[in-house]
């Protein structure tokens, strides 16, 4: 195809940012609408991408390749496969949703939307980049708008949360940079082309693979975040404005997992096999630890934040299991479960943060104990929130169930005890979710909240697509699995080689 669809998807938000910068900063409505409409461009195009993407092959599609800095073999190289197409769609969708939920931003509107569009450009670029340098550039570009979005529009401890987020993630990414240098200099001929590096993967010395894998692990584990690298997450989530929490949970956390699957796994097969048990163990610790800490939370947003640690733990457990069965077919159940969890957690937790934000906007508190009986006063809000809570605890019929079920089935084939422990996590999740639902929505109505208003039309429009997708993916898993299985099979072959 001649139309550079990936470049347009990635850079249309950047163009949008420039347009926003030209608008008068007093015209809040105009700025808000323009940015929301601009975010529809990548969304529409990513739907086209999903539709036209050929899921029967693991080959890169829609590639665009230009030399950029030939002296150091750096290219402008974009392309998508089954790993990136759903993520690009998820990013575009959650960006639009987040912009819809940002209409109440009243201060420094122009800067807010400009930074947001820059953030979207960086996120989409990460999922589209196939040159390692380009990947790193997009990976880092995101940090700057994120720093501002948390630091300017965040809660009471925003400055601390913003710099903590910035330093933590930069600490991880500089190690990725070291890994990139090491791989670049070890490849013959020197290349930063990810596909070429994947081809050379098995040829890298084992010692090098282990070290570089660990460097990449630091970068990605901080992003996911895997226990014990998660400490930035509760701070960032709690202080960030609602829309940014949605993006953090829905997209940024996925980047860590995506990094493992796109880079660490195929490029460093020996390292991956070497460290896979560690991933499984840390994944299970994250599941249990995240769930236990969630139980202890008094703040609703913190509860959702720690539940992310727990849920991404399932993702890591699933990721650690890959082998080729005796019949010679690749075992992708666990990996598919992992990917399903990435996508589904993006939808569910994105929606949870959205709904927490909706409640906070009205009640100005997130303390679970302060509410009670809201189901009487806000029936629609309660219905939506409870639905997503059920999805989050893994109720069959919702996407979260499919993901966790696949992870368990897949992982049980290799780690029986660990999977057994991980299942306890589901019980714990049910524990804290149901307790939260009970204490906020059921029981005696606290008359203090008589003034609360129902979720409005704009917020409903924002959340409904997530709801539809969550249910749809819960009953029709082939919708997503069909997109990714060829790519995942290829990854298993690459790792096991």
């Amino acid at each position: 195809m001649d139309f550079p669809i990936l470049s347009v998807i990635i850079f249309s938000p950047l163009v949008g940012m420039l347009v926003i910068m030209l608008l008068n900063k007093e015209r809040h409505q105009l700025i808000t609408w323009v940015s929301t409409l601009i975010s529809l461009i990548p969304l529409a195009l990513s739907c086209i991408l999903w539709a036209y993407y050929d899921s029967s092959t693991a080959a890169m599609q829609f590639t665009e390749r230009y030399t950029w800095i030939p002296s150091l073999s750096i290219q402008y190289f974009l392309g998508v496969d089954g790993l990136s197409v759903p993520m690009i769609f998820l990013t575009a969708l959650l960006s639009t949703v987040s912009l819809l939920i940002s209409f109440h931003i009243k201060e420094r509107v122009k800067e807010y939307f400009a930074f947001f569009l820059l953030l979207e450009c960086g996120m989409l670029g990460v999922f589209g980049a196939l040159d390692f340098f380009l990947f790193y550039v997009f990976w880092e570009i995101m940090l700057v708008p994120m720093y501002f979005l948390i630091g300017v529009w965040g809660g009471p401890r925003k400055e601390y949360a913003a710099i903590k987020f910035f330093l933590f993630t930069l600490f991880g990414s500089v190690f990725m940079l070291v890994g990139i240098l090491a791989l670049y200099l070890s490849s013959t001929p020197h290349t930063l082309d990810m596909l070429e590096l994947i081809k050379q993967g098995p040829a890298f010395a084992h010692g090098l693979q282990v070290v570089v894998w660990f460097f990449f692990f630091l970068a990605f584990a901080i992003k996911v975040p895997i226990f014990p690298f998660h400490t930035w997450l509760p701070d960032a989530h709690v202080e960030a404005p609602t829309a940014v929490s949605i993006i953090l949970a829905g997209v940024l956390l996925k980047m860590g997992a995506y990094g493992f699957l796109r880079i660490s796994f195929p490029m460093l097969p020996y390292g991956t096999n070497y460290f896979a048990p560690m991933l499984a163990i840390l994944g299970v610790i994250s599941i249990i630890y995240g769930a236990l800490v969630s139980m202890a939370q008094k703040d609703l947003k913190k509860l959702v934040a720690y539940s992310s640690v727990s849920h991404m733990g399932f993702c890591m457990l699933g990721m650690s299991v890959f082998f080729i069965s005796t019949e010679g077919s690749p075992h992708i159940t666990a990996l598919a479960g992992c990917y399903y969890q990435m996508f589904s957690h993006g939808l569910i937790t994105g929606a949870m943060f959205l709904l927490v934000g909706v409640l906070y906007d009205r009640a100005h508190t997130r303390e679970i104990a302060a509410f009670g009986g809201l189901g009487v006063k806000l029936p629609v809000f309660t219905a939506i929130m409870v639905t997503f809570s059920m999805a989050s605890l893994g109720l069959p019929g919702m996407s979260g169930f499919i993901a966790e079920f696949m992870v368990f089935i897949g992982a049980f084939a290799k780690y029986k005890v660990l999977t057994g422990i991980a299942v306890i996590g589901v019980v714990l999740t049910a524990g804290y979710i149901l307790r939260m639902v009970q204490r906020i929505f059921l029981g005696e109505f606290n008359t203090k909240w008589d003034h609360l208003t129902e979720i409005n039309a704009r917020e409903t429009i924002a959340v409904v697509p997530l709801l539809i997708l969550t249910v749809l993916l819960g009953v029709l898993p082939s919708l997503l699995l069909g997109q990714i299985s060829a790519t995942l099979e290829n990854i298993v072959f690459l790792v096991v080689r």
Partner: protein
Amino acid sequence: MPNLKLMLPELLLFAWAILVIIIGISRRRKNNESLIYITLLGIVISGLLIPIAGYGELFGRTFLVDKYAVFFKIIFLGAAFFAVASSSDLMSKLKSDHGEFFGLMLLSTVGMMFLTSTAELITLYVSLELTTIPLFVLAAYRKDQLASSEAGLKYLILGALSSAILLYGISLIYGLTGTTFLNDNLMRLIQQSIQMLLTTASINPALAIAIIMLVAGLGFKLALVPFHMWAPDVYEGAPTPVTAFLSVASKAAGVAALARIFYAGLTSFHSTDWGPLLAVLAAAAMIVGNITAVLQTNIKRMLAYSSIAHIGYLLIGFVALPLGDSGSINGPASLMFYLFAYMFANMGAFACAIAFARNFDSYQIRDYQGLSEKSTGLAVMLTIFLLSLAGIPPLVGFFGKYYVFLAGWTDYRWLVIIGILTSVIALYYYANVIKQMFFNKEKSTLDKVKLDTPLAITLVLTVIGTIVCGLYPEPVIRFAVEAVAIFPF
């Protein structure tokens, strides 16, 4: 008749310096911006003469023009241009002697240009003096301020001391080899080293002392740790345009001289002697510079310490000599690119500090609180410069760091790791300034910043350089790689 055409840019700039001083005297006590524009014109013409002058050598290689020299000359002229253009506020605070200020700055630039263009130690020494003596005067130029006089005096005493040390090192080299020409040195030292390896397998102590003296002498000029003590005081006390000029051009000159001596003359001793020595100094500079910068509350001191750290990053490139046919992965070329990147971002950051002080008369970082409220443009530009210095893509500073680390990785992994970890620390203090400007705007009491035209020119050009060279560094890299091809690695 020697082909003096080669020396045209230097000669013109020298004449222009005299001219500016004369004009300054004849229009004494008139505060006018025209002197700035006249000086800028001279710098631009001198830059345009560089391609006309061409390449070649004069006076038996005492003066030579190669791509290496040209690259550095562009950096010197660029830094001088930005420093002069940022000086109009300083001029309005000074009652007289405007011409001398610009004249001295041009003379110092001429010294730097000669410095890169020589492969002979005596000429190198004389050029270095021509570079630094005007800088002593410039540092003390605010005669009404005690801090400025103190800065000038400190700089003079330590500068003189370091010159003496350097000269002693040069004299030892001469004593060992009987020549001051770096190319002859090379041949003899290679022969000597082979002989030494064959006989005693150890280094000549006189040579070791000579190398230490050279490093210490130039280390003072570069403010390398542990020779950096003078820098923060001088940087804080000196008039800000001078500080900016010191932190970029004077460092570039020191690096240029160091590279000429070590690359052209002492390459064969790299792995045994000066490589490890400079690597340790680089590590110390990055660690001390970055950690101390975190503690600073004054933006000039913060930038001073951060510039000490940047010299550390530069030195990674310096010690990472290319191996065989490694093409563009080339330490010396990465060092030159890093300096080029550093020039834009650092001159820009200082220009922002000048713009701020011009309006609010403060260099305290906490006073920057809420700057973005009324002066969004300035705050955004300072953010871009600081992020470039911190090494955030796609700005030019990131590419400089990437290139230096890439070059250093093969031989000096530990140094690259230190560099990468300290760059995370660096982000903390750069982000602190950004935080002051953007977060908590409500408390802001700052009015809109007013700029004068030359300062605005500086800001716009440096911001363009920071972004454009970050997105498309290819031409600069290629030029730097070609430039270092003259050295016998």
